[in-house]
């Protein structure tokens, strides 16, 4: 009788395979308890070249004024000074021309926010911070547009009440006033990437995902709008977590910023890009404000952070903001 073998067998029985959520611990490590740490490493990662222009591009690339409320009557020269927080929502409305291909018509089912980012622009514009909000976050949603207040996943605020409800929810949760919102839907995102002439990303592992209609080899490559969209939506890839997806989206946004930088010294091209962009997104910023913001931000650096979070006890597939770290992050943005 081999006691060690019996023990090993018992171990085999008791053993569990690591769940996909283990990736959260990797994120925790990268944050190192300090939510801003990723900020520095983005730059040491050899992307310093993009520094001067990246933040410019958040508004330039992602912002336009389709469906804009008309600017208040008599508004004169655009004043975009002071601290600004811009809520960027990537949504999968899947309605409208060009979107139906990516999934069943969801008009009745409402729209879902897939990507939620608050771009914080401090008054001195020395640097900008893009704060990603995991869509699986369980939060308290205040009463809004006829929907009662409740505890739910944050993107439920958008599904039910649209951008204004999500904005209200985030203002309440973060204590940050949010001045502008930008909604980009899937088709819009695609159009922007194509207007940029494609973006270059490095794909870590080959992708073959019929669900996202995407097949990519590993390695550095230029993605067109269609491929970039698939890459941004990819869910069942890598560790399969939403956090992994957020990381890929950061990567894409970054690539877009880098590409749009090449257009900045050329006002004519910049304007034409913005013109293209405005067709694809929905925002309360008009073209002049965007342009103003864009040029103002040309010396600004952009950092990415994700709101500190931890697993949500009642449901392993959800998460909640980690306190006091999250509160500290918002405080640093005031």
């Amino acid at each position: 009788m081999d006691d060690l073998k019996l023990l090993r067998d018992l171990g085999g029985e008791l053993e569990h395979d690591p769940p996909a959520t283990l990736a959260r611990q990797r994120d925790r490590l990268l944050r190192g308890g300090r939510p801003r740490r990723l900020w520095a490493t983005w730059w040491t990662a050899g992307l310093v070249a993009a520094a001067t222009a990246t933040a410019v591009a958040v508004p330039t690339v992602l912002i336009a004024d389709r469906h804009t409320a008309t600017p208040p009557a008599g508004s004169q020269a655009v004043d975009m000074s002071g601290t600004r927080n811009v809520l960027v929502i990537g949504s999968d409305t899947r309605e409208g021309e060009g979107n139906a291909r990516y999934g069943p018509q969801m008009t009745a089912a409402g729209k879902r926010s897939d990507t939620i980012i608050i771009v914080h622009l401090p008054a001195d514009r020395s640097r900008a911070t893009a704060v990603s909000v995991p869509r699986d976050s369980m939060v308290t949603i205040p009463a809004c547009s006829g929907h009662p207040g409740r505890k739910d996943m944050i993107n439920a605020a958008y599904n039910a009440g649209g951008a204004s409800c999500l904005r209200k929810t985030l203002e309440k949760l973060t204590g940050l006033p949010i001045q502008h919102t930008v909604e980009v839907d899937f088709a819009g995102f695609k159009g922007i990437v194509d207007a940029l002439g494609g973006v270059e990303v490095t794909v870590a592992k080959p992708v073959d995902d019929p669900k996202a209609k995407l097949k990519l080899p590993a390695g550095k490559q230029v993605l067109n709008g269609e491929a970039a969209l698939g890459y941004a939506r990819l869910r069942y890839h890598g560790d399969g977590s939403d956090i992994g997806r957020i990381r890929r989206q950061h990567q894409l946004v970054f690539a877009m910023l880098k590409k749009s930088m090449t257009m900045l010294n050329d006002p004519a091209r910049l304007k034409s890009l913005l013109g293209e962009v405005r067709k694809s997104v929905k925002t309360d910023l008009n073209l002049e404000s965007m342009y103003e913001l864009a040029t103002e931000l040309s010396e600004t650096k952009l950092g990415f952070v994700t709101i500190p979070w931890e697993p949500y006890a009642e449901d392993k597939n959800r998460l909640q903001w980690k306190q006091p770290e999250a509160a500290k992050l918002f405080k640093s943005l005031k």
Partner: protein
Amino acid sequence: MILQAATRGADSELVCASWTDPEVFAELFDRYSAMLYRYVSKRLGPEPAEDLVGETFLVAFSRRKSYDLAYEDARPWLFGILTKLISRHHRKEAARYRALLRAPVDSDIESPADRVAAGVTAQAVRAELAGALAALPAKDRDVLLLIAWGDLTYEEVAQALGIPVGTVRSRLNRGRRKVRAALGDANPMEEE
């Protein structure tokens, strides 16, 4: 944030590189988090395992500058940190083994094929094994399980726990003797 497809170098090189480029440390996580998770899941079950693995790497990260680069393999170092963290949960661990004493032997989660492959015999004596593990002093159990469940060598266990190899041997022998005794070995005292 895409890490370069690194040609696999020694762990010590990664630790060293992480001194100047902290993000490199994540590569160690990619190498060993699953292995550590499996180990904790055996001792404490799946719920605390995730958090403990995360904590192990946080502690390791904060101590990366005192890592002895002479050791190419970082596993003993990580297991050492993890063992300390597990020791805070000793009540939970003992309760887990005691629960096995009571649990019915049959489990329909595993297929019969798995059972044949992974331990019909271990299943038959599960209660005895669990009882013996629950009764072991923590120091002896750490050594025994690092070898049986962590697949470390004597030298690696010594390194992980910061004790001489001779001590590893004596603790291991003591632990195994008790396990054999629990299994009804005719001569439990033979080596004493």
